[in-house]
């Protein structure tokens, strides 16, 4: 809640939308376990469903025409994939939109470059998937596509920072 108020205050004051630097550490703390768990689920999750708890939640469940039941209702969802997706998104957003230790205009340019690169590569990948993957399997593409912008942005941003720090002209 604090984060949303902080972003809104900065937005209305036309300041930077970036969060304080401490949120980056919190972001990594959420992102790493979620990423490892996501990889585990991606590789082994579908074949070894030994532990697959379900929790009851309230929300939109399918079309009223398909089930004949109310569209918005209490129902069961799989806990683990949903939990790690949310943790990954929350961690990713915090890492993406937190300030660096020393934030300046060059870092801002790298940030913009990484964001443009991530969106562009994301849609190139989506386009390639659209013309090569069909039927029900495409739902998987849409699911993984939720995370690609975050992953590509983080990789590109830190690669550019690393490349510039090693490129010494002293």
């Amino acid at each position, binding site marked *: 809640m604090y984060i949303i108020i902080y972003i809104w205050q900065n937005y209305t004051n036309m300041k930077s939308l970036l969060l304080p630097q401490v949120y980056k550490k919190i972001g990594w703390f959420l992102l790493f376990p979620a990423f490892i768990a996501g990889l585990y689920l991606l590789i082994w999750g579908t074949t070894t469903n030994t532990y697959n708890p379900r929790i009851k939640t309230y929300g939109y469940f399918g079309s009223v025409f398909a089930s004949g039941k109310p569209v918005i209702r209490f129902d069961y969802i799989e806990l683990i994939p949903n939990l790690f997706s949310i943790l990954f998104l929350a961690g990713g957003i915090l890492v993406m939109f937190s300030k660096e230790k020393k934030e300046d*205009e060059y870092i801002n*340019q790298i940030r913009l470059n990484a964001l443009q690169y991530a969106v562009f590569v994301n849609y190139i990948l989506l386009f390639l998937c659209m013309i090569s993957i069909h039927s029900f399997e495409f739902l998987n593409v849409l699911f993984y596509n939720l995370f690609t912008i975050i992953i590509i942005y983080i990789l590109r941003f830190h690669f550019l920072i690393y490349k510039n720090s090693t490129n010494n002209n002293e």
Partner: protein
Amino acid sequence: MNNKIKIERAVNNLTQEQLAEKVSVTRQTINAIELKKFVPSTVLAMKICKVFNKTIEEVFGLEDTD
């Protein structure tokens, strides 16, 4: 955009790190400006010139392609 930051640093006996500290940016930013990979904002350019006690034209200059 051309710049003579590296020369001015040598004249004033400053490292990239020291100049960066004086104008409140990272060393990487100064490095990128010297390598012409980044064109600084007017504010940063003026701050850099102030450190060297020079005018903007003495430190920065336009290229034919600009």
